[in-house]
């Protein structure tokens, strides 16, 4: 069991990160903290997918005279670049919503907001 965990340490780490993020999203009262939790979850998934493409001793997959196999798999990295763009847009939208909520209500604590409704 421990040995299996050790081999897959990268996956285990992303699972732990994911859970930390989810915990923040669910339990934190401050909207910004909630959102930081979401960013931690995003990072966990990104790290998981990038780790998929790693090849031990692999080289950057760039063709040329001095290119020598094995190469790392570039596809997960390309996917995650797209994923990061999505995450940045989500963050931008969420932060601007939080700013507007603060301007309107003077607070970003979820429980105080709930009382105002």
């Amino acid at each position, binding site marked *: 069991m421990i040995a299996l965990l050790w081999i897959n340490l990268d996956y285990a780490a992303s699972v732990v990160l994911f859970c930390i993020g989810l915990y923040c999203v669910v339990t934190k009262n401050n909207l910004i903290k909630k959102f930081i939790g*979401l960013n931690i979850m995003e990072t966990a998934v990104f790290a998981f997918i990038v780790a998929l493409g790693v090849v031990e001793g692999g080289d950057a997959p760039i063709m040329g005279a001095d290119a020598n196999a094995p190469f790392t798999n570039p596809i997960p990295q390309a996917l995650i670049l797209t994923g990061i763009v999505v995450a940045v847009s989500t963050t931008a939208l969420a932060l601007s919503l939080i700013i507007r909520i603060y301007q309107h209500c003077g607070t970003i604590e979820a429980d105080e907001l709930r009382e105002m409704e």
Partner: protein
Amino acid sequence: MPASALLVGVIIIPLVGAVLTPVVGGRSGRAAGPWALAVMLVTSAIALMLIVHVANVGPFSAYLGGWEPPYGIELRFDEFSASTSVICLLGTLSILFSFKYAEKELPPERIRYYYTLLLLNLTGMIGFVVTGDIFNLFVFMEILSLSGYALVAVSGERTAEMAAFKYLIMGAVSSLMVLFAIGLLYALTGSLNMADISVRLAGAEKAPAMLAIAAFTVGFMVKAALFPLHIWLPDAHAIAPSPVSAILSGLVVKTGLLGMIRIYQIYYGAKVLDLSALNTVLVWLGAISIVMGAFFAIFQEDIKMMLAYSTISNVGYIIMGLGLASQYGVIGAAVHIFNHALIKATLFLGAGAIIYRTGYRNLTDLRGIGRSMPLTTAAISIGAISIVGMPPTAGFLCKWYIALGAVEAGQPLFAVALVFGALFIFVYYIRMVNTFYFQEPVHPEILEVEEAPLSMLFPVLILAALCLIMGILGRIPLSFVEPAVTRLLAPLGG
């Protein structure tokens, strides 16, 4: 033009149109509406050609950049992709409806961005239903989700922003679930093309494949607002501007369901897991959703809140049909995706027209509105009859098929749950119709209100007419999805 070029065009045209909208709309935003309408009309024409093509020759593909799968991105148009027709129809009508609505309800400097977001949202949905690549599916899902969150907040009111934030948090977590599942499938198969994954998954390890489908299901369940994960929906759908509610309720929640159909296509084809346990869970959650959605709707005073809860019930019907995994059940579910979009758009746009004219949204305040806005209320009543599922309307057919599916799958008890749910739904819609027509108005000025303007009335009446026509001509969509469902369920060894 070859079909593959059209297939690319159906995504590119609204996307480019959306990007150009703020420029064309100018500072006043006056030209943005007509421009968006023109873009959607062109897109609808292309979608129509694609559907005729798929009816004649069956599913076909386009390869982006000429790279063939599994290396390139494949766009694939099959019978389930024909839901582009309803996306285009509702998109066009909602934009037409928005002309007057946006002028009154939105700050003028936001109008052009409102249409931009609307077009982006529609692009995302069209892309979502036609893509054959699983990562591409995620990208389109994010386009439609992000524009959806922003559309909820577009009016700039305090409650709207809070509803949008709630929607955003739940939506973003569910998107991450889906991305995680995509990563798992890629790790298992080394491919991102759906058809290719389906072939390669056959020999894969069981445990990660199971984890992947679980993550997919949870992710899409949040998007589809199935019962325990529905809490974001009522606020977001009720507070958004009415044309947006029509699109969110009619179409955006359906993308979660279509996503599930896509994943089922992969897993049924691969035969790697026995999905009957998952299907049992889905049928139960569907049944609970039907009853709980209807139960909450009964106690709502706000007309749009009531409609939002009724969406939860109807998603329950569709999930139940899918989970039954019998021929009739899945056909009924697939057609209900289409029909419920029509019905719910009729109701939300009708409610929007009433709110636009009167400024009231509570049922008590709206007593007697049937006398001053006869056409709009008639359309809403047709929608109400339709959603309850009375013959000969569009809603009857799908619910009948799903009930037949329950019997076919040997679980007639769920057909009982379905009828029970329909009774609940009947109760609150009859209450609504009763308020409109037969109760004395609380506010006398209600009787003075004019009928809705033509640009609002036209979409509502067209949709109401379609609710009736789709009931009478119901065989057409049913026979259309039948080959696709037969193909989907064939690996189950029917």
